[in-house]
């Protein structure tokens, strides 16, 4: 096996093994090993991408076992692009999680000594006096979560406090070492989806991603469990639909390999009905997992309720796995846009053609709905993380605008077309290139946005936009990061979002879908509106709002909000990792400044800068997509 093939296989296996290893390690070691594994995985991905960008697809059958029962891996241009984005975003988020352990979630720590806990609670009424006062500016008592009601994501996800009776048996602290094995397992699953060579592996990869993602969301503490459960149900429903579709395809064409199946469908008219049914089922299942409107209700609580390091992974990466599979299946199975001369194409004819076209138009309409309704809903949000989550719901719509062009690349134009510079055969590739560039740009920018929001939430204990007025003054780097991410999401130059919008708009005009231009314009305006709302709030300089904005006391992580056991793990971020049982009274209540160092702002800033720099990579992206493509 060549280096690239080994690297490709390693990109799937290494994170998986690392995840298993991390599950066994004590919490203190996990950070270092996790980061090391992340760097190694990124290196393997780099090797694979380099090979693909040289123009060669990479294929390997693990263990030498061929299809249909062996595991075949296959990386083409589309895979390489998604692999690269996952590696970049994953690496940066690992760095952030390593710097800010508090961002990895909440965990319950049993408190043994009830009496001492009660005494400590009484004594902690006002820690402003005493030795801690030097570091605590002002204590803002975190709102206590009533223990009889499940806090919905609206009310305060993961808000620390106690559970159960006062002086109760469990205290919630920030930092959950379970993040590391779960995230690396998720990464393994994502890579598996991106390099899978047949539907079976795709299914397994999707399930791995789903399972670990549910776990990651649940790290967010009590506020996130309900959302995680809902996500679980949706993920399973989607996967089972996909499984049925895969089974149908195998039954009809006799092979799991998508490319071979497409050839069989193209050659044999009788398989068309089954193939179409399979297409509908897998589209439905994947749209469930993509949260396409109107099936979007699960996404906002899950993404908003996740811990700070998890939300970017969810919005930027996990969603992309489903998108990738959807793109792969449609590009190969629905080939009517490509014409006879290009590659194996499913020559669906007659009523089947109408059905496929109809399905494509439905997807396009739902995408438009997502863009407009999602944007309007985002505009109405008063909290930062739900706003960004609704932004994801909206941006999903951009990618679905590709489908009407795919099924109908030469629709009737309003007037005679003069000579166009876009050849007929390159309309569909341009549309696909546009959707992919938009997805990649979205990954980078959304991750930056969620990291920035997470930073603010960890620092100040709130993500209410009203409460964060003027925070920009203290964190100029963060505001710059949000600004750059805004450029990427709105699709202004320079960014992959702009390149994607350009290509999509070009394809839309060349294929006669002029309505898409209006949709793109409206969506851009809406995106700009709600992101500007965030930026303006942060830039506001009114003096009176600054005084309200204080760092959430570190003790809040340790339950200062209700009086709980000792704050020993409040003194050092590292110490929190040790997960030791503690009933000792902590001397100082450290502020969240220690827990959320200013250097952590580099993570969203780096992603923001990358969002803009990749704006120059439009041509490279389009060229890379050509590798292994069916056109």
């Amino acid at each position: 096996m060549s280096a690239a093939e080994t690297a490709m296989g390693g990109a799937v296996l290494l994170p998986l093994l690392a995840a298993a290893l991390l599950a066994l390690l004590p919490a203190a070691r996990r950070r270092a090993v996790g980061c090391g594994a992340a760097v190694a995985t990124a290196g393997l991905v780099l090797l694979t991408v380099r090979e693909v960008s040289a123009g060669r697809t990479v294929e390997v059958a693990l263990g030498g076992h061929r299809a249909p029962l062996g595991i075949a891996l296959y990386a083409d241009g589309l895979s390489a692009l998604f692999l690269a984005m996952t590696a970049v975003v994953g690496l940066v988020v690992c760095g952030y999680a390593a710097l800010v352990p508090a961002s990895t979630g909440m965990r319950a720590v049993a408190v043994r000594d009830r009496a001492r806990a009660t005494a400590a609670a009484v004594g902690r009424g006002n820690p402003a006096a005493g030795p801690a006062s030097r570091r605590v500016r002002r204590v803002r008592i975190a709102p206590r979560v009533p223990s009889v009601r499940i806090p919905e994501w609206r009310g305060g996800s993961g808000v620390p406090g106690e559970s159960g009776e006062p002086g109760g048996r469990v205290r919630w602290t920030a930092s959950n070492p379970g993040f590391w094995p779960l995230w690396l397992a998720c990464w393994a699953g994502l890579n598996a989806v991106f390099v899978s060579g047949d539907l079976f592996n795709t299914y397994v990869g999707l399930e791995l991603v789903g399972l670990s993602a549910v776990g990651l969301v649940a790290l967010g503490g009590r506020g996130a469990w309900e959302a995680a459960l809902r996500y679980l149900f949706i993920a399973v429903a989607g996967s089972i639909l996909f499984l049925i579709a895969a089974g149908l395809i195998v039954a009809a064409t006799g092979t799991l390999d998508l490319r071979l199946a497409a050839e069989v469908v193209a050659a044999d008219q009788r398989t068309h009905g089954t193939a179409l049914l399979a297409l509908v089922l897998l589209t439905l299942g994947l749209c469930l997992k993509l949260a396409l409107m109107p099936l979007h209700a699960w996404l906002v609580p899950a993404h908003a309720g996740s811990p700070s390091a998890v939300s970017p992974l969810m919005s930027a990466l996990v969603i992309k796995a489903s998108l990738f599979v959807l793109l792969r299946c449609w590009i190969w199975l629905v080939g009517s846009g490509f014409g006879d001369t290009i590659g194996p194409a499913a020559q669906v004819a007659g009523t089947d053609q109408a059905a496929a076209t109809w399905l494509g138009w439905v997807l396009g309409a739902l995408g438009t709905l997502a863009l407009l309704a999602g944007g309007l809903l985002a505009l109405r949000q008063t909290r930062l993380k739900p706003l960004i989550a609704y932004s994801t719901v909206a941006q999903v719509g951009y990618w679905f605008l590709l489908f009407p062009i795919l099924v109908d690349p030469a629709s009737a134009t309003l007037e005679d077309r003069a000579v166009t510079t876009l050849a007929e055969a390159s309309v569909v590739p341009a549309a696909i290139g546009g959707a992919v560039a938009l997805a990649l740009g979205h990954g980078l920018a959304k991750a930056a946005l969620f990291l920035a929001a997470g930073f603010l939430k960890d620092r100040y204990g709130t993500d209410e936009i009203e409460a964060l007025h003027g925070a920009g003054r203290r964190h100029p780097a963060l505001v710059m990061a949000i600004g750059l991410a805004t450029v990427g999401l709105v699709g202004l130059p320079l960014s992959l979002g702009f390149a994607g919008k350009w290509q999509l708009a070009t394809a839309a005009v060349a294929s006669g879908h002029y309505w898409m231009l209006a949709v793109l314009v409206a969506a851009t305006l809406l995106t700009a509106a709600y992101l500007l709302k965030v930026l303006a709030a942060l830039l506001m300089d009114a003096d009176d709002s600054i005084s309200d904005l204080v760092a959430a006391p570190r003790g809040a992580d340790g339950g200062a909000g209700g009086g709980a056991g000792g704050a020993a793990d409040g003194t050092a971020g590292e110490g929190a990792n040790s997960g030791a049982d503690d009933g000792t009274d902590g001397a100082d209540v450290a502020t969240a400044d220690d827990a959320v160092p200013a250097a952590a702002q580099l993570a969203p800033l780096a992603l923001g800068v990358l969002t803009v720099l990749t704006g120059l990579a439009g041509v490279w992206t389009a060229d890379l997509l050509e590798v292994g493509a069916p056109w």
Partner: protein
Amino acid sequence: MTVLDLYLLLGAGIALAGLMRLLLVSDRFARLIAMNVLGVGSLALLLALAARSAPVDPVLSALVITGLVITVAFTGVGAVLIRRIEGEERGGEP
């Protein structure tokens, strides 16, 4: 209508019932059970498809086995989550 076609329809029917209940009901455990019903239905469907060829199609059988394992895993995680949530609701027990 052969026996296999009957099983096909049966599997599809069970899966559809499970899916509907999963999406529409609000009780958590009921949803968990519905999820399993959906799984069973889909697996029955796949087995019916597999049984169409003379030696049962090994690929589809492999899909079924994988599906079983994954459904079990998800059911386990779901049960733990439900237990935690309802423990929260009752007040106090993690």
